[in-house]
């Protein structure tokens, strides 16, 4: 889910950068020192996860893990994902420096919002409810990220429907896998270290 350099038009790039910048400022302002180790771990998990792809039919997709990051970090998701993407762009030329803003916003914004909506359903004594809620966060984060990427491509290429269909098709299986991974991690964390989640 990385848009390469030279695909998007300047207005789209600028909009994405400004949106990401406001997200970054929000994330860094509300940063709690106690949370930083957690952010570092999740940031590097994000960095590695995007490098690993799973072949699905003719194409392949990779884990994004943005759902779990959004659920655990809130607005700090922006700096976490931004740093992961920056290093991917610098070390592997995945995405690109100019598209950093668009990519960051598309991957960080949906999980932040979904995290706020679903966080209250995470309860220690209701495991099945927690499981479903965190599955939805993981699943919907990928779907909405794919839609945002599709939108960014649409404003440049004006071919929204085919782009969004291929994007959603490619990311649907990944979204389900992400949903399960998010659920398992959240339920596990709730058992062993509930203060991280709640």
């Amino acid at each position: 889910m990385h848009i390469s350099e030279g695909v998007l038009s300047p207005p789209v790039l600028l909009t994405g950068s400004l949106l990401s910048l406001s997200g970054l400022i929000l994330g860094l302002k509300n940063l709690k020192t106690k949370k930083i180790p957690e952010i570092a771990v999740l940031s590097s998990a994000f960095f590695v996860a995007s490098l690993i792809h799973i072949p699905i039919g003719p194409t392949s997709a990779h884990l994004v893990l943005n759902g779990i990051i959004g659920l655990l970090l809130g607005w700090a998701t922006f700096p976490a994902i931004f740093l992961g993407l920056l290093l991917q762009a610098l070390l592997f030329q995945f995405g690109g420096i100019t598209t950093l803003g668009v990519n960051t916003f598309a991957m960080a914004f949906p999980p932040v919002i979904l995290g706020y909506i679903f966080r209250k359903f995470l309860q220690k004594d209701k495991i099945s409810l927690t499981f479903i809620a965190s599955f939805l966060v993981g699943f919907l984060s990928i779907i909405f990220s794919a839609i945002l990427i599709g939108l960014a491509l649409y404003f440049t290429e004006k071919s929204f429907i085919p782009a969004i269909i291929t994007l959603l098709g490619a990311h649907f299986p990944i979204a389900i896998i992400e949903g399960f991974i998010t659920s398992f991690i959240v339920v596990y964390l709730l058992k062993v270290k509930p203060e991280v989640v709640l």
Partner: protein
Amino acid sequence: MRILILLTFFLVFFTKMGFTHKINTFAYREGDQIIGEAYFADGSPCIKCKVEVYSDKGVKILDMTTDEKGKFSFTTKEKGSIKIKVIAGEGHLAECKVEGLKNPQASKSLESKIETPKTEETPHHLKLTNEEIKIAIKEAVSEALKETIKPETEGIKNLLMEVKKDMDRAKLHDIIGGIGYIFGIWGMVTILKFRKK
């Protein structure tokens, strides 16, 4: 710590499946022919990807797609450098540049080659001038030379392609280095936070 262990487990499990779909392309020129290949970061071919060819001035020359092995080739009259764009959809794009022909003489000698058969038809033209003999010998030698070194250059080209692919592959030490950078940067943020207090 436990998150880290859990995540490492997942990541190690999926690592066997290779690395992500960043796309790369590589092309070279052989006279009028351009031969190239497009592949993903793990070295797997980019099958049926759209290829766009642009001239030096940014004018689109032609459109094509790669074959089952991710390869593409075409002939062009363009003498200047050429830009090749490979588009894999979903915002994935790769670019590469092929240098222009350095010796325009090659095309000149081609013209003289076409003229020589004509001169042979009439007997009194059989007497070739010194200049023409020189050109003919040059032609024959260069032709023979090309023939002999072709298998060798082919091997070198394949090797180059492999090396290029290997360079584009995501490396384990880069990944580990990246994780180090992330921890380092967050560590610095922590220090700054404590300084403020």
